[in-house]
């Protein structure tokens, strides 16, 4: 019990929780934007991988970090466009297309990595984003390092949440986006472009997802590894359901998840070899499934989620 308290009372734990939550924040926000418009984006795991690889490679080849972030977002947006064109105007199965985009993005990332660096045994590192010190605030005891000792990408994620929440709930564009995920026929009769809105949402959402991948290589691990995303994308899809498609809850969900993951990592250390490490490693996945089950019965799905809208067909 003391060990648990020690963990919870250490500032480094909370700093780690926010750090671990950051890629999930991007992922869950991206998934939320797509799903609010009625498109389930199962390309997320591949888009994470592609964002991680593209951002890292751009910096490795000499671009500065922020340009690398832009490259990652552009790659994510392009993959989102592929998924959107297949699922929105063509109305193909969002489940199978999403898996297809994930396989495509992952294999393309691995192929490009291997072609760009044919002869490396250990993954080359880049100079990553450094934590920013916010004058005054970073020196606060306890809260300082946890909340303000983060890299700029964490602040970008928080800013994107604010922008997304505002746009979704306070602007005509957001109303249109939400309506297109609930009742596309009504949106059509209001004179708005259903396909345009959905494609736009998927492209933007995918760009945001890719930033989550970019965080992994440009702030967390400083290098690109195969299979480094480790199912984070799928966890984000589960978190989106858990958050009832609301930005505020999604942010909270990502932070809770980050805290849980940081906790199990430390507990694993405290317990030592008494419990196999794999037991701890599988907890995030089991927790995601449990989260899905707890909200399943009362989940308030966007009514038109996964329902393609084809003109003249009802």
């Amino acid at each position, binding site marked *: 019990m003391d060990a648990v308290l020690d963990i919870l009372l250490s500032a480094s734990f909370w700093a780690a929780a926010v750090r671990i939550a950051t890629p999930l924040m991007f992922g869950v926000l991206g998934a939320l934007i797509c799903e609010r418009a009625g498109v389930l984006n*199962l390309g997320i*795991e591949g888009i994470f991988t592609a964002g991680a690889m593209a951002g890292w490679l751009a910096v490795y080849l000499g671009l500065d970090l922020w340009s690398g972030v832009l490259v990652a977002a552009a790659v994510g947006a392009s993959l989102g466009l*592929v998924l959107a064109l*297949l699922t929105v*105007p*063509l*109305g*193909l*199965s969002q*489940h*199978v*297309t*999403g*898996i*297809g*985009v994930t*396989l*495509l993005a*992952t*294999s*393309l990332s*691995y*192929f*490009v990595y*291997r*072609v760009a660096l*044919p002869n490396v045994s250990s993954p080359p590192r880049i100079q990553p984003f450094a934590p920013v010190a916010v004058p005054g605030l970073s020196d606060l005891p306890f809260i300082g390092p946890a909340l303000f000792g983060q890299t700029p990408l964490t602040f970008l994620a928080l800013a994107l949440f604010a922008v997304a929440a505002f746009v979704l709930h306070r602007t005509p564009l957001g109303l249109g986006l939400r309506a297109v995920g609930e009742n596309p026929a009504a949106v059509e009769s209001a004179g708005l472009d259903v396909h345009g809105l959905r494609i736009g949402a998927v492209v933007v959402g995918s760009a945001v997802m890719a930033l989550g991948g970019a965080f992994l290589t440009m702030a967390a691990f400083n290098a690109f590894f195969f299979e480094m995303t*480790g*199912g984070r994308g*799928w*966890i984000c*899809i*589960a978190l989106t*359901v858990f958050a009832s498609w609301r930005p505020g809850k999604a942010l909270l969900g990502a932070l809770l998840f980050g805290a849980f993951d940081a906790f199990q990592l430390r507990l694993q250390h405290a317990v030592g070899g008494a419990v*196999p490490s*794999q*037991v701890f*490693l*599988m907890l995030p*996945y*089991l927790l*995601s*499934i449990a989260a*899905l*089950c707890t909200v*399943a*019965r009362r*989940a308030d799905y966007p009514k038109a989620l996964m329902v393609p809208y*084809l003109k003249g067909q009802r």
Partner: protein
Amino acid sequence: MIRFEPRARASLALIVGARLAALATAFALAAIPLAAAGAPVGRSFWLMLQGAGGTLFALTETLTRATPLILTGLAAAVAFRARLFNIGAEGQLYAGAMAAVAVGSGAVSGGPLLLVPLVLLAAALAGAALMLVPTVLKVRLGVDEVVTTLLLNFVVLLVAQMMLEGPLKDPMGGGWPQSEPILDQAMLPPIVERMRLHGGFLLGLLACVVAHVLMTRSVLGLRIRAVGENATAAAYAGIPILPTMLAVGALSGGLAGLAGASEVAGLKGYLTADLSRGFGYAGIVVAMVAGLQPLAVVPAAILVAGVFVGADTMSRTVGVSNYIADLIVALALVCVLVSGLFVRFRVRIA
């Protein structure tokens, strides 16, 4: 503006033609990254073809690689027919492999007539049991099975790693995380002399024929197809949804479990945590290329396996990463999906 006019009926020639055109498109698209990587495109594809089927050895290697893909492809094909999107064949394969090793490496003694069926049965049951969890969650709670099966893949792989460092670890393995070997009497026999091709391939062929008969000639098959076409209408017609879904989930998981048994008891002889090279995910592509038709799963699996085996050979000669195989396979999935539109609809650009 694109308009889709539903076709009343698609001819077999159109279905096959569209599928082949899709595959040709996938290869054509894969030529772009190949050329960008500086590889001679024509020669690379020729070397892939040679590597996949140019010699008896190459051909048996392709069929060996196709064996797990037939079973995982079939697992996806039967489940997708009922709109149960089982993306968990990877995990179910490992569950099956663990069960096969648990019963086949000395826990039970006996002759091949007892042990081989026992190993296969254990693996199928393990895979089926694993798939029942997401199936029940989907039908009872409406939890998306794609997400749960994907997440379970990670869990099962971790369980396998844990078992290989614990109860299933071979004490004679020199510290490597690998299981005790499967007894000789429990191994699926080789079917071509001095080659690695084994009885698992025949098992896969048999499974496809049985699944074909089941889907087209049985009450369960009719129910599976009805639930997949329109679950509401099927329920209205008195088809019991939960039992049908449980049956198709168990069938699908069981087939993927058999893939695991076939790999450990047919090819490797023991279990390691890198048993599957993405066979579960490649099975989804196989199922889609086969149009979810059990009999078409065999050529589709051989094609996908040929791409992987051929790319290995090509990569050694040309020096281009063999991830080109994964890329071709992913492109094939997307192209086949799009080609399905041309089969179901007359596409008019007005």
